[in-house]
């Protein structure tokens, strides 16, 4: 086993005390930036780039790997406890996670997120170790029509499973799609739907929409009902830890999330969001406790968190094997490699095995450090909820202001925050899911690009959209997702009516 030998060599590098120290620093920093809104791993690594001049490459990459994974751990904390996801990858975690926290089960939610991240991170790293070259080939198999089909599947599955009715889900989705069309068209450069405001040329910022719909909408809702709402629940009423049942319900979502997350993360246009959407939709379909979804189902936290972390390992695949960065974080890592005069790609495994295997080994170690670092913190984080409610929400609004104003100190962003916050409030009152809106905003423009590319290549022949086995089957699944539940509901209703008919007649 050549790979095993090299991996053992990698562990020898990663386990040197100095490298362990850097791994620890990276994990701690990563967790901290994950908690803060508007600061992601890409920015942090970019800011730390100058240290590459001082420390050796292995140590630097070990630290960067810690930041990459650490940010994902940190991101789940605010989503679960405060219902304010800081990044697109943790939107789905907030849905069930925050409901769990509100019913006193925050500790279990944080624990399943942390352990799920660990499990998925490890599986993702294992896959990276042994399957990277094979998975990398996916990049060449997926064409524009396949990406488009993947995104359509994300749209439909999320719009269908979320919220009380199809109408609500699709309303939210189309609202997000509409926001996504604002700004300069990426392909032809035409200005679209900017209403004469130059500030909108570069589009509506995702952070603004995320913060407004979630944090501001939530604050307005709770404020308007705090007097009549039941008093705050003891955050630990559900216990300090995951119960046996929690474990039993978590392990499958962890594994499924990993399986979805890794390959999609490895696609050049895959990203870390789609897997979390798909994982949530899948868990909601498969759960034996469908009534708990929307009320705090642990599967809805375990799956997306696992998918998120596995996808993070996945984005390293095209980077390390092809030299192809697919996310901002990967681009920063690529630049760091190049700072050392290294070119990631097929040759790197041959020319710098020590560094590369050291990096891969450090991913395993970083994951473990994060678990050890974060599990004891769960109890402390949960106590956040003991702060008087007015201060929590006052703090959330200040937090949100940092995120929105810090983007570009733009007045329009503040106005958007206010308006979208109101829409978030209305959505909360009338039970519209907000996640499909965010998904429409993120994936809408990408889906449009892929659709137009596919049609350009085919010279306007729409049959190209079902032209490959991948795209045809993904679209077929999407169609099933859309049609089967209403059909089943209709049949059930008819059966009930048929039963009721003779009874009332007689």
């Amino acid at each position: 086993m050549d790979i095993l030998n090299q991996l053992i060599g990698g562990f020898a590098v990663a386990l040197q005390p100095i490298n362990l120290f850097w791994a620890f620093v990276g994990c701690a920093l990563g967790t901290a930036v994950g908690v803060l809104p508007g600061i992601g791993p890409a920015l942090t690594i970019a800011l730390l780039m100058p240290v590459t001049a001082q420390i050796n490459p292995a140590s630097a990459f070990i630290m960067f790997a810690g930041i990459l994974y650490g940010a994902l751990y940190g991101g789940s904390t605010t989503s679960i406890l405060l219902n304010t996801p800081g990044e697109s990858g943790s939107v789905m975690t907030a849905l069930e996670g925050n409901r769990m926290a509100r019913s006193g089960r925050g500790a279990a939610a944080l624990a399943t997120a942390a352990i799920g991240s660990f499990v998925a991170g490890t599986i993702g790293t294992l896959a990276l170790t042994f399957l990277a070259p094979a998975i990398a080939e996916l990049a060449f198999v997926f064409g524009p029509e396949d990406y488009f089909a993947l995104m359509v599947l994300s749209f439909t599955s999320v719009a269908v499973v979320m919220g009380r009715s199809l109408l609500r889900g699709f309303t939210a989705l189309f609202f997000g799609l509409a926001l996504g069309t604002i700004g300069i068209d990426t392909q032809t450069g035409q200005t679209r739907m900017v209403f004469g405001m130059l500030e909108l040329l570069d589009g509506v910022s995702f952070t603004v929409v995320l913060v407004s719909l979630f944090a501001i909408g939530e604050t307005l809702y709770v404020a308007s009902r705090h007097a009549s709402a039941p008093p705050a629940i003891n955050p630990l009423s559900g216990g300090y830890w995951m119960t046996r049942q929690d474990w039993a319900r978590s392990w499958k979502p962890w594994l499924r999330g990993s399986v979805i997350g890794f390959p999609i993360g490895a696609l050049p246009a895959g990203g870390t969001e789609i897997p979390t959407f798909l994982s949530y939709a899948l868990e909601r379909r498969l759960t034996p406790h469908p009534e708990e979804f929307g009320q705090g189902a642990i599967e809805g936290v375990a799956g997306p968190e696992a998918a998120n972390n596995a996808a993070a390992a996945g984005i390293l695949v095209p980077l390390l094997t092809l030299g192809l960065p697919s996310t901002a974080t990967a681009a920063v890592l690529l630049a760091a490699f190049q700072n050392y005069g290294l070119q990631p790609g097929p040759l790197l495994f041959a020319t710098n095995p020590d560094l590369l295997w050291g990096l891969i080994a450090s991913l395993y170690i970083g994951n473990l450090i994060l678990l050890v670092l974060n599990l004891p913190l769960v109890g402390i984080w949960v106590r956040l909820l003991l702060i008087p409610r007015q201060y929590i929400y006052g703090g959330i609004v200040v937090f949100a202001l940092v995120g929105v104003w810090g983007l570009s100190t733009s007045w329009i962003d503040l106005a958007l925050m206010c308006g979208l916050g109101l829409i978030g409030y209305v959505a909360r009152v009338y039970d519209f899911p907000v996640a499909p809106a965010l998904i429409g905003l993120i994936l809408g423009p990408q889906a449009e690009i892929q659709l137009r590319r596919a049609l350009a290549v085919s010279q306007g022949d729409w049959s190209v959209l079902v032209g490959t086995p991948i795209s045809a089957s993904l679209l077929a699944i999407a169609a099933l997702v859309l049609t089967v539940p209403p059909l089943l509901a209709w049949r059930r209703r008819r059966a009930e009516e048929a039963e009721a008919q003779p009874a009332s007649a007689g």
Partner: protein
Amino acid sequence: MLKRLTMAGALVLGLGAVTAFADPAKVMIPANPGGGWDGAGRHTMAAFAQSKIFTDGASFTNKGGAAGTIGLAEFVRTAKGDDNALLVTGVIMVGGVITNKTPVSLADTTPLLRLTNEYNAIAVPANSPIKTPQDFIAALKADPSALSVGGGSAGGADHVMLALLAKHAGAPVAKINFVSFSGGEILAALGGGKIKAAISGASEFRQFAESGRIRIIAVSGPSRVDGINAPTLKESGIPVEIGNWRGFVGPPGMSEGAKKLWLERFAKLHETPAWKETLKTQGWEDAYLPGDKFNAFLKEEEANWTSALKEVGILK
């Protein structure tokens, strides 16, 4: 507690920040990760750090699409008066602003300098029947819309080059099938045979060509490029020469002092061995042209591109 949380986070980062750097440059890259502008921004800042001319580090924002005009719009809006903000620019943006009639233009920025030049290359999937520039022209002539050619944004150098090639082939420019990409995705699409050919900077193709995924069939410069085994278009009897210069501009309202400071830094960088090494490994040509000369050059380019785009029929 929330406060403590914020403070703790800010403190951890703050400490790291104070010790490692003081005032990082904020570099806007108006393209997705993995493309030519991305490399231009990141390698230049890396060379600054390596040569110890500017060691405060840099943070990068990738905002791709529409020939960089989306990034330009964001830069003009958000970096106004920020003396540490830089925007990577180039000929593609000049063309994009004209073609798209973008409401913001490079005239809204503080031009700093032109730094590099690079020639385009035409590449095809490894198993493509197109082997020579002549094959390419023949395919273009036979059915321009059946030949899907990937490249950067509309109105950019890649697009214009394809239009010029079509003109040479005697094919109608309105029928060409130009598929726009931003960043490294074009390499995967080409390597996977999703598009029949691609036009982009020679350096972007190099690694994939070396690993045998794609084949470079021609370069667009006046002479062959070291390490790339492909003829120039000129020597193949196709009179098309397209350069792709890249440089930096500052934000609107950048102070005179800051402009001077950055120009001095670039002047120093231009002399260092680290920069010469970067040029060599990236396959870029030195095209250093600072300050007022760059301003004049920009005006000239705008005029040139307006007439060129009209001539090939992209601009109406």
